[in-house]
């Protein structure tokens, strides 16, 4: 058993080296397939980041009546911060609201004159609420109907966000479905490429397989070097792809952050943290597909 196993490993390495061009083509095909799989993964990460980037910018502004006391504002703020759906609550006092308004309209003398005429701040305090996700906004809006401070609220600026929330939801769902569909198509293509690559490689070896059988080799003895070779192909393909993916990701990561207001997508960090499951799963999947294809394709050549 041990002797046979060692021989199978030796035959696999021998075949790999002595059929160098065939091995090179096979590994290249497998590597190209994996590149598309990793490209899909990158797209998925970027899409997820884009959705969360947009969701982070959704906020609900709640305008309180002028003269609402600081305690009541703090109470409302505390209540909202206690909600699991709320990520952040920012309190803008009446004075801060006035200062911001003045700053925004610094060039408009008419507006500034009008403000002087009113005297003091015509604005009430404001709460700016950020949800954890787009899905949380309706719940937050609903919670603002709490009788404790419902009557203090002058206006809730949410109507314009409703549309955004719905659009982001629809986009997120579309992106998710598109991702699943694309992944399924790519997986199917990948399986077909691997299957055909293996079939071509075995077609080249068909006479050798018959000869091995005619001199008394068992099916297992003939098959095992090919299966080991499959693992070698897969290992090399994954190694090459990892060698391509890391530098490419490192190169595009800073460029992508420009699209997200300087905020990093974390692509490189994601690959650095998860390299083992990412490439481990790819190696396992590729090896399994390879071995199943080899076993299926070999069946007819073993009937000697």
């Amino acid at each position, binding site marked *: 058993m041990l002797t046979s196993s060692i*021989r199978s490993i030796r035959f696999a390495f021998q075949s790999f080296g002595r059929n160098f061009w065939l091995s090179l083509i096979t590994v290249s095909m497998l590597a190209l397939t994996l590149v598309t799989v990793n490209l899909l993964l990158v797209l998925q990460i970027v899409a997820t980041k884009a959705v969360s980037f947009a969701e982070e910018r959704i906020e609900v502004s709640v305008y309180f009546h002028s003269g609402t006391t600081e305690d009541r504002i703090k109470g409302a703020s505390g209540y909202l911060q206690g909600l699991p759906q709320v990520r952040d609550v920012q309190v803008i006092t009446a004075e801060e609201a006035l200062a911001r308004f003045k700053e925004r309209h610094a060039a408009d003398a008419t507006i500034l004159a009008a403000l002087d005429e009113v005297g003091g701040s015509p604005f009430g305090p404001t709460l700016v609420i950020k949800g954890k996700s787009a899905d949380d906004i309706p719940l937050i809006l609903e919670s603002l109907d709490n009788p404790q401070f419902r009557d203090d609220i002058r206006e809730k600026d949410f109507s314009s966000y409703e549309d955004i929330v719905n659009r982001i939801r629809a986009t997120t769902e579309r992106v998710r479905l598109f991702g699943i569909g694309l992944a399924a198509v790519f997986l199917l293509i990948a399986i077909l490429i691997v299957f055909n690559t293996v079939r071509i490689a075995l077609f080249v070896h068909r006479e*050798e397989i018959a000869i091995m*059988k*005619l001199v008394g080799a068992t099916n297992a003895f003939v098959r095992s070097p090919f299966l080991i070779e499959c693992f070698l192909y897969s290992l090399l393909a994954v190694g090459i792809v990892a060698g391509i993916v890391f530098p490419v990701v490192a190169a595009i990561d800073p460029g992508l952050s420009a699209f997200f207001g300087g905020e990093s997508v974390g692509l490189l960090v994601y690959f650095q943290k998860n390299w083992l499951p990412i490439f481990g799963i790819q190696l396992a999947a590729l090896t399994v597909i390879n071995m199943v294809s080899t076993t299926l394709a070999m069946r007819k050549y073993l009937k000697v």
Partner: protein
Amino acid sequence: MIHFKNVIKTYPPNIVGIRNVSLHIRPGEFVSIVGQSGTGKSTLAKLMFAEETATSGQIAIGGWDITRISQHDVPMLRRQIGVVFQDFKLLPRKTVFENVAFALEVSGTPNRRIKEIVPQVLKIVNLHDKGDRYPKQLSGGEQQRVVVARSLVHRPKILVADEPTGNLDAIHTHEIIDLLKKINEFGTTVVLVTHNREVVNALKKRVITVDDGQITSDVEEGRYKI
């Protein structure tokens, strides 16, 4: 040693390869099976090492009934029979040494034994200095000698040679036939399938003539007559 009883072999849809053949080859015999192309002599050889299975009848090799041999047992049978083919059937990406060693490796022979036996067998076929060559670097005659070495290496009791000189010139044909005779002298039963008149006539051994899937003559010191 080799026993065929009422063996019939048909191929789909309804092509007859062998018609009701019965024969008995004794241990240590040198038997030539002759006949024109397509008469069924190669089918007879293939039935002996289970490359084909009989449609009906009974085949026994060394007392082992292989008529309905299972796929699992076929390798065991082939390790006990040496086979020489017309088209050599050498592994193109293995050296001469590795090709011969492969017949031992499949049966789990230890490396130490392989390193002892293979050079000895290569010496018998006069290829001891060409062990590291690949088949394509050898002449036809040399390739056929490698095949003979491979078929001998596990000391088979039976050697089946299916048109071994079909692709060789006169000189190489003579070399191969001399080798087969030498192997036979050591006690191995040799079954030679051929349509080479000169070879058969020079051998002066038992000749079985096959025509249209049937044995038409079986003569102890026979000659080629069709």
